[in-house]
C-alpha cells in the first residue's frame, strides 16, 4: 500500500493491529485504548509503535507518552469531522511532537492541503489512485494569512 509521506508517494511499512489481535513484529499501530492497557509490553516491542486516535479522543492523554511513539494516526470516521485538524495542531504546536502524524480514514484529497498546514505530514487515502492529485494540492497556494505548523 502506498501513502503520501513528507511530500512523496512511498510504500507504507506499518502494520495495523486490531484490539483483539496478537502483536506483530515490525512497526505496528494500535488503538489508544490498547496503548493505555498494554503500554509496558508495547514499550518492549522490537519495532516502532504508533497510536491511532479518533476525533473523540483527547490528545492531552497521550502528552507524556509522545516521546515513545513514532507515529500518531488520526482517523477520519467522516471527512467533515474537523476535530482531527485541532488534534494535529495540538500535537505539533502544544506538545511539540516530532514523529509522523498521519491522516487516514475517510478524508478527501482536497483536505490534504489544510491538514498539511496544521502539521500532518503523511496521508493515507481510501483510493491510492488519488494520491498524485492529493500531492499536487500541496501546491494550491503560495500565500497564507495564518502561520503553518510543520
Amino acid at each position: 500500500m502506498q501513502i503520501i509521506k513528507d511530500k512523496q508517494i512511498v510504500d507504507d511499512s506499518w502494520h495495523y493491529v486490531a484490539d483483539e489481535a496478537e502483536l506483530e513484529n515490525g512497526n505496528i499501530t494500535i488503538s489508544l485504548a490498547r496503548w493505555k492497557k498494554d503500554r509496558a509490553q508495547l514499550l518492549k516491542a522490537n519495532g516502532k509503535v504508533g497510536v491511532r486516535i479518533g476525533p473523540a479522543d483527547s490528545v492531552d492523554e497521550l502528552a507524556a507518552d509522545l516521546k515513545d511513539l513514532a507515529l500518531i494516526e488520526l482517523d477520519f470516521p467522516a471527512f467533515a469531522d474537523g476535530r482531527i485538524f485541532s488534534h494535529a495542531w495540538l500535537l505539533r504546536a502544544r506538545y511539540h511532537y516530532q514523529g509522523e502524524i498521519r491522516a487516514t480514514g475517510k478524508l478527501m484529497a482536497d483536505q490534504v492541503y489544510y491538514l498539511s498546514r496544521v502539521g500532518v505530514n503523511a496521508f493515507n487515502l481510501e483510493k491510492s489512485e488519488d494520491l498524485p492529485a492529493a500531492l499536487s494540492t500541496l501546491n494550491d497556494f503560495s500565500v497564507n494569512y495564518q502561520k503553518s505548523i510543520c
Partner: protein
Amino acid sequence: MYQYNDNDQTLIEQRVAQFRRQTESYLKGDISDDQFRALRLMNGLYIQTHAPMLRIAGPYGLFNAKQFRKLAHIARTYDKNYCHFTTRQNVQFNWPQLERVPDILEELASVQMHAIQTSGNCLRNTSSDHLAGICVDEIEDPRPYCEIIRQWTTLHPEFAYLPRKFKIAVSGAKHDRAATQFHDIGLHLVTNDAGEIGFKVLVGGGLGRTPIIGQVIRPYLEKKHLLSYLEAILRIYNLFGRRDNKYKARIKILVKESGLEKFAELVENEWLLIRDNLELDAGRIDAIKAQFAPPAYEANAAQDASFTEHLADNKAFATWIKYNTAEHKIVGYRAVFVSLKAPDSPPGDMTDTQLDAVADLADRYSFGEIRSTHRQNLILADVKQADLFPLWQQLDALKLATPNNGTATDIICCPGLDFCSLANAGTIGISKEINDALDDLDYLHDIGDVKINMSGCMNGCAHQSVGHIGVLGVDKKGAEWYQLTLGGSSENEAAIGERLGPSIAKDQVTQAITTILAVYLKQRLDDESFLDTVKRVGITPFKEQVYADH
C-alpha cells in the same frame, strides 16, 4: 476601504484555480456529490430549487463602484439581470450555471472580490455596522478589525470543518446596528476604566431554530489579543461542539449545555497557552487602519444654502431626507440609504441597470464607495448636503428612493419558496401584499419605526425572531402557514419575539399585520414607538384583535 496587496490578490486567484479544479473533478465524476457539496459550500455555492445560488462576500458590507459594475456585468452575462443583497451584507446570484461558476469567480477576483466561506460549516464573512467610521456615536471604527478578522478567517486550515457555521460581527458604536448579540461571536469596541479601547467579547448568540442572546465571556480584551482569543474560542468549539445533531451543533448550544462559566474556563485556559504567540502588533493595526482613513471631506460643505431651500420647498425631498438619510460625524455631510424596498420589487433585489447607476452615483457623490446593510438596503456614506437634492432626484428615477427606511415596508425578507430549496413557505408575495396594503405614505410614516422580518422557514435567514413583527413560514400538511411573533429586537435591548398565537393561513397574513399596526396606533401613548408599546401593553391586545374572527 481596504485595497488588496499582491499577496491578497494571489490568494484569491489561487482559490479560483482551486475551485475550478474541484468543479471539473466533480463534473468528471471523480468526487462524490457529498464531497463536492462541502467543497462548493465553502465557496458560496448552493444547489437551489431552480439552479445553483452563488453567494458573494461583501466584506463587512463594503463595496466600491468598480465592484458594483462587475456585479452588474455578472448579472447580465451569467444571470437574469439581477442580484439579491442579504442580511449578512453579502450578494447572491440565483441563476448561475454550475459549469460557469469558476468563470464568475475569476471575474470577481479581477476586482478584489470572492465567494470564500460565504456558506458551509466554516468561519463566515464578518459583518459590521453599516455606519462604521461616520456615525456620531462611535467609540472607534470597527472596520480595520473586521479586515484583520477577514484575513485571519480566510482559508484558516484548522477551522474549515467546524460542527456548524460560525459568524462574527463587530460593532464600534454605542448603538448596536450589527446585531452582535445574535452572532456566534459578537465584538464591541469599548473603553475601559483606564480610558483604553479594547473589545467586549460576547459568545453563543444566534438566530435560526433556537434564538439565543449572546453572553459576555470577557468584558474587556486588549486589542493585541484579538486573534488569540478568537482562536481559543474556535478551538474549544471545534473540539467540543456537538456533531451528532446539526440542529444542536452551533456554539450557542455548546455554551448553553456547558454553562457560560465552564465554557469560559475552557476558553481562558486555552487562551493563556497561546496568547503570547499570536499577538497583533500595533504596527499591523496601524497599517490596516491607514487603509480606512477618512476621505477628503470638503471643509465648507456646511455652508451650502441650497439644501435648506430644497427642504423648505419640496415636501417629498424633505420626507426622503427624514427617513432615508442619517446624521454624519462631519458637519455638512449625511449618509444616504438607497432603498432596495420599492413596493413592486422583491426586498433586497437590484437590477444590473440599478447596479451600474448606483456605481456612477457613488463615484459622483460619495467617494466611489457603497455599503450594504443588514436590513438589505445600501448606503452612500459620505454625501455632502449640496449633493443630496440631485442625488435624490436620480435615485428616485431609478426607483431607489422609496422613503421607507426603518418603516413597516422596509421588510427584511429571505428569498422564500420562490427560490430556496429549504423554504416551507413563500415570502416575496406577502411582502408585496404588505406594500400594497401600506401604500399610504403618511400612514406608514405615522406608524414610524417598525421592523418586519419574514423568513420562509425555521432557518431564519431573515431574522424573524428579532423582528418587531416576525413572520415565519411553516409547512402545515403541505400548505403554507405563518407564525407571527411580536416584540423582537436585534439592537441594544436585544429580545426574542413572543409568539402571538396559532399560525395563520397565507391569505390572512397581510390582514393580521395591518390589524397589529392598527392596534398599535390605538394603544400608543404620545410618540411611543411600536416596540415600546408592545413592551408596555404585552401581546394580549394584539392577539385579541388578530384572532377575533377565529
